């Protein structure tokens, strides 16, 4: 038995599994060590059966279906008879635009920021309560957010896609969301009617989000030194130095007051400014090429409490109130301190269980939890004893 499998076995002797709601209506799937194929269409009628399976087979990866089926172990999808599915969001470092240059720890921090944005959409806009939402560290490079609420169970693929589009701002029509109107002439110049946008930071939905972001943006610009402000403004697509200067010079106290009251003149410029703000507010849920998995009504998701075969970390639940405190490299660790002799393949630094390690290439004695993590990630090897 390989080192990793032995360690996983020791965990699965007495694992802390969180069973999904209606666990007996779900399909389960497993990938075993040294196998590429997935064992699918498995169902369990008791929790104990799940535990026995884990102990017997010691899988490297364990999944269950977000969907509920009448016959979860049927081999053909159509025979399973779909009954509904939880709404699942998969936030993964691989979906971030700059993920490649980040370390494991940094990448996870970035994903956590996306997770917080997602939560604000789910709770403020969609009105889900803490009871409806469960958060998990995926064991890998991301977080999963499960929404279990009877109202969302029956949403079909296209309806789920609308939810995803909302959160990722796909198809957002800035013109429509910002609401343009021509105000009566005397309000501004006395002579002309000027195209003015009226935004309202107290509005719900994207309207309010964009309004608040624009007002904050101008406050920030106003507080900057001239040249810094120009630099910031020309970063925006479609705004040249001349326009940037004009915008900055026009930001008088009087004008700032109008902006804070939600009155924006020169509508086209504001639309340009709003664009990158929308990108920043939206959740990066998937890369362009990737199919958004949330819209999939029959996807597989990692079983909470199981171990991730590529890290040895546990798929771990997170209290919504304590997101900031959650540290995957401490809170998702299940292995102990016993020292293990390994051959490290690459020099690296890492903080785990609040200990900082500087590891050189070559033989080293490391605590078991770190050894498991490195071996699982392919950064170290253990010679058979």
């Amino acid at each position, binding site marked *: 038995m390989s080192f990793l499998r032995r360690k996983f076995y020791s965990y699965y002797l007495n694992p802390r599994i969180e069973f999904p709601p209606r666990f007996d209506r779900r399909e389960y799937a497993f990938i075993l060590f040294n196998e590429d194929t997935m064992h699918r269409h498995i169902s369990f009628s008791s929790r104990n059966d799940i535990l026995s399976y884990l102990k017997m087979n010691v899988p490297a990866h364990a999944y269950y279906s977000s969907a509920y089926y009448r016959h979860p172990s049927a081999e053909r999808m159509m025979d399973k008879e779909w009954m509904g599915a939880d709404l699942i969001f998969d936030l993964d470092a691989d979906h971030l635009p700059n993920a490649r240059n980040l370390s494991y720890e940094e990448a996870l921090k970035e994903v956590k920021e996306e997770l917080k944005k997602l939560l604000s959409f789910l709770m403020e806009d969609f009105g*889900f309560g803490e009871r409806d939402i469960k958060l998990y560290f995926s064991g890998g490079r991301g977080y999963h957010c499960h929404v279990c609420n009877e109202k969302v169970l029956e949403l079909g693929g296209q309806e789920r896609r609308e939810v995803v589009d909302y959160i990722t701002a796909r198809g957002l029509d800035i013109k429509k969301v910002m609401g343009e109107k021509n105000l009566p002439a005397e309000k501004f110049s006395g002579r002309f009617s000027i195209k003015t946008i009226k935004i309202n930071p107290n509005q719900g939905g994207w309207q309010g989000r964009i309004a608040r972001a624009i007002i904050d943006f101008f406050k920030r610009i106003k507080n900057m030194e001239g040249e810094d402000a120009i630099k910031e403004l020309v970063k925006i697509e479609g705004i040249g130095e001349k326009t940037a200067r004009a915008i900055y010079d026009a930001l008088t106290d009087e004008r700032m007051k109008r902006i804070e009251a939600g009155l924006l003149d020169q509508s086209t410029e504001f639309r340009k400014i709003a664009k990158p703000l929308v990108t920043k507010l939206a959740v990066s849920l998937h890369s362009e090429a990737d199919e958004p998995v949330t819209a999939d009504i029959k996807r597989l998701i990692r079983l909470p409490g199981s171990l991730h075969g590529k890290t040895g970390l546990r798929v771990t639940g997170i209290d919504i109130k304590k997101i900031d405190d959650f540290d995957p490299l401490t809170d998702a660790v299940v292995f102990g301190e016993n020292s293990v002799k390994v051959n490290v393949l690459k020099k690296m630094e890492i903080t785990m269980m609040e200990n900082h390690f500087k590891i050189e290439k070559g033989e080293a004695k490391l605590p078991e939890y770190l050894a498991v993590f490195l071996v699982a990630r392919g950064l170290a090897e253990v010679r058979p004893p």
Partner: protein
Amino acid sequence: MKEAKEWVKEQKVSIEEILFDDLYERARERGVERVRQAVDEGIVREVAMVSEADCIMEIFSYPIARMIVASVESDYLVRRYALAEAKKAYESMKNEEGSFIDYLAREMGVEVSGNEIYFTDYLKYAPTWDINWKLVNREMRKGYVLLSKSEVARLIQEAIRKKIYNELAFAFAPPEVKKVFKDEILGIKNKVIFKEEKRKVGEVKEEGFPPCIKNLIAAVKAGINVPHVGRFTLVTFLNAVGMDIEEILKIFASSPDFNAEKTRYQIEHITGRISGTVYATPKCDTIRTWGLCYPDEYCRNIRHPLFYYRRRARK
């Protein structure tokens, strides 16, 4: 509606009476008229109701119309009739107080409070392929989507249409209905067949489709879940080159979440069979921003997928 149903039950009027008794002659005439208007005009017109008798005839005409529709045994008619009745409901909602809309909403099981509707119900009934109806462009707070009164009415119209369709799609009428309305049913059947025939048009050369469309077809046929805008693009294109609804529907049939009735409704909407608005095929720029463009060598200098087809299909 439910109330009318209850009322009809309470009257203890038998089907025989409705079908044969002289007293209900006017209800029978109006029942036939409802179906004819649905076929000819696509909407059931409201009638002036002055006396109590008018009201009673109107109420009884509805189950009669439904029995006639069921007797014709045409899915096309069921769809057209369901829509026409739903449109009638929409028209009356426009002229009524908000409380009437609330009442109808509750009947349909739609969660509405004032002008706010819960987002799952919104998604069930809103034509979200239209950019103006996309959820992301709507104001939503704590799960409720803010709408105008006429938009709420529009969603309830769709809920009613669905309900009537689902009730009639598998309904059987008592055999007497076929006897009583023999001539009327024959007339309606002929019209329906004629209308369906008219929608079939010329030959489509698939080899002339641009790569974006070919890709979409391949994806849909392979059962890959294609984004909304992709489906939209595909339907508008196939419609523009003259494919009929049945053929378009066949392409979508292998989609993982295929729902024949829903897909048909969306296709009919996009192609103007329902709304009267024929949605245009998006131009290349738009398709590109959606990430659906996979140009080949013939795409150079082409700005619209239909130009590509017209150029290639001629050869």
